[in-house]
């Protein structure tokens, strides 16, 4: 039976981790995500399911604990917020390189530097363009509600083990801190050690028993071997694009103008398109649920239908680069977003749509190019 509760986003995520049958959580306090470890320490999942919870000495230690447990085939996660994720990036790169399954949660706050503890979406580049060193990508899920903070934990583990790759849940201070009704899933039992050995014995380090030794490493000093590893990773990412892309179209069928937004900005933009429609403006919303893989084709096709696109993000303009790459100059694309921890209102989003997109009319880029030649 699913259970209905009023919870904070961070708490819902922590409870979902227990219910997803996670074996361990390692973390370090940082605002605005400390509720995750506080909830787990209070809940004592060790007594409920046997799940280990440990407060590490740093975000660096925490991500390397994740690396350690993941090396043995355990279902393991960590959470942090922006400056803490910057610290974890070395470990995340190792996890990607060593091909380990792991879930990382970023409840984003404003930056750069110590920035602010208020909500932000300024870690888009960090999340989808690598962040850490080397050729790797993260599968990135962007929840837009407390319900999704809960649901995406299990989804993330499924992807992490399907590909033996790190999965990032990219939330923000707004989704993490707000309270909403959430329907909690039923408890999934943790795998026993014997089940882990049976399921993941082909690669996990669980002790050399009745088989050759297993080695977890991201090091290949032979160039050809290293290149083969990189190609193997790229194949995974190609498969993710084919099989595990997720996005949502809202009121797009007859849309003349399009907003692209994820996470908290998508929630706000959904209200903005409702306001627009009340004024007779046919606006739609494309909400990427995965930021990698990105809904490139859906955007490419929508660009044939709409007159202009507004990328709404709580940052100075990051995802707009992917929107432009997807749209390939078919229609004008503009950015709107507040920074510094200020959350834009639906009215501000609508005003930006009117001022930056609608006011310019159906100004397709090829016309602009012609006029500039003349």
């Amino acid at each position, binding site marked *: 039976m699913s259970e209905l509760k009023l919870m904070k986003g961070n708490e819902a995520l922590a409870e979902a981790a227990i219910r997803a049958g996670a074996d361990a959580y390692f973390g370090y306090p940082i605002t605005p995500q400390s509720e995750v470890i506080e909830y787990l320490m209070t809940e004592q999942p060790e007594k409920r399911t046997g799940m280990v919870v440990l407060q590490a000495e740093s975000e660096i230690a925490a991500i390397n604990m994740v690396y350690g447990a993941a090396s043995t085939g355990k279902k393991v996660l960590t959470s942090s917020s922006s400056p803490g994720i910057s610290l974890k990036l070395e470990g995340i790169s190792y996890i990607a390189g060593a091909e380990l399954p792991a879930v990382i949660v970023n409840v984003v706050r404003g930056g750069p530097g110590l920035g602010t503890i208020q909500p932000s979406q300024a870690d888009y580049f960090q999340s989808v363009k690598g962040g850490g060193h080397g050729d790797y990508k993260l599968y990135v899920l962007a929840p837009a509600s407390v319900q999704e903070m809960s649901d995406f934990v299990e989804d993330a583990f499924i992807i992490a083990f399907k590909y033996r790759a790190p999965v990032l849940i990219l939330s923000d201070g707004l989704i993490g801190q707000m309270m909403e009704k959430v329907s909690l899933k039923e408890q999934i039992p943790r795998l026993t050690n014997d089940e882990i050995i049976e399921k993941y014995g082909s690669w996990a380090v669980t*002790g050399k028993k009745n088989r050759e030794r*297993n080695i977890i*490493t991201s090091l290949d000093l032979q160039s050809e071997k290293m290149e083969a590893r990189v190609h193997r990773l790229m194949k995974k990412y190609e498969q993710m694009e084919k099989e595990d892309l997720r996005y949502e179209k809202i009121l797009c069928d007859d849309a003349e103008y399009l907003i692209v937004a994820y996470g908290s900005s998508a929630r706000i933009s959904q209200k903005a398109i409702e306001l627009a429609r009340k004024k007779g403006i046919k606006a739609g919303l494309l909400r990427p649920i995965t930021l990698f893989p990105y809904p490139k084709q859906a955007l490419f096709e929508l660009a044939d239908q709409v007159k202009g696109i507004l990328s709404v993000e709580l940052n100075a303009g990051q995802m707009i680069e992917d929107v432009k790459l997807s749209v390939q100059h078919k229609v004008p694309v503009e950015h709107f977003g507040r920074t510094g921890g200020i959350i834009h209102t639906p009215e501000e989003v609508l005003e930006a749509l009117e001022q930056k997109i609608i006011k310019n009319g159906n100004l397709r880029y090829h016309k602009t190019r012609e006029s500039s030649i003349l």
Partner: protein
Amino acid sequence: MEILDIIKPENQVFCKTKLMTDSALSYCPGCGHGTAHNLTMEVIDEMGIVEDTIGVAPVGCSVLAYDFMNIDMTQAAHGRAPAVATAIARTWPEKYVFTYQGDGDLAAIGTAETIHACNRGENIVIIFVNNGIYGMTGGQMAPTTLEGMISSTSPYGREIKSMGSPLKMTELVANLPGVYYVTRQSVHTHKHARKAKKAIQKAFENTRLKKGLSFIEIVSNCNSGWKMTPNESNIWMEENMFKYFPLGDIKVDGILKQ
């Protein structure tokens, strides 16, 4: 009688443990790492615990330890082996988990992970090979480089005023209540190697009894980094390294030695 008539399996009185692979060691001839590897693997073999042992390799000269140790191993980021081992020991409490780290890895970049794993008293073994230099990257100054010692980043000798004193990590962690066993050994002679093996054995025995953290420093040579012949380096080690890093037990069964 021809020599080949004598070299037969049935005539063998001593052989390499099967827990060392046949891969050629990547260490410089004369280096102590090979012996330290061998002793560790012999202990695991003799205790019959290979099926339940998970090793953690560091970054540094022994990054490829997993090529030579014929056991399940994971390779940690630079300095993070104690954090990696912590998680393995916490999620598999019945396993024998050990890290094998050098001085740059353990006493510089991984200081925080080392101290906190020790302070929590994780039920793991830390094998710390201290040769007073960064060997892998070509002989730079390490936290354990002795005063006046020349390295590529202390070309005029380590100067205490600007570079700090060599760090005695082993004495430091011995003072933490979570640490059960601390000893400093060397492997450059048969006598020393036998003592070191006993220490390693005791450490894994502590894991079996769930006594907490065992910390074994092995003071070793780096003839390449020190720019000496292997023999010269061992003599220099006895005359200089052992003065600053004296051999012997520091904490046994949770009790500090005077």
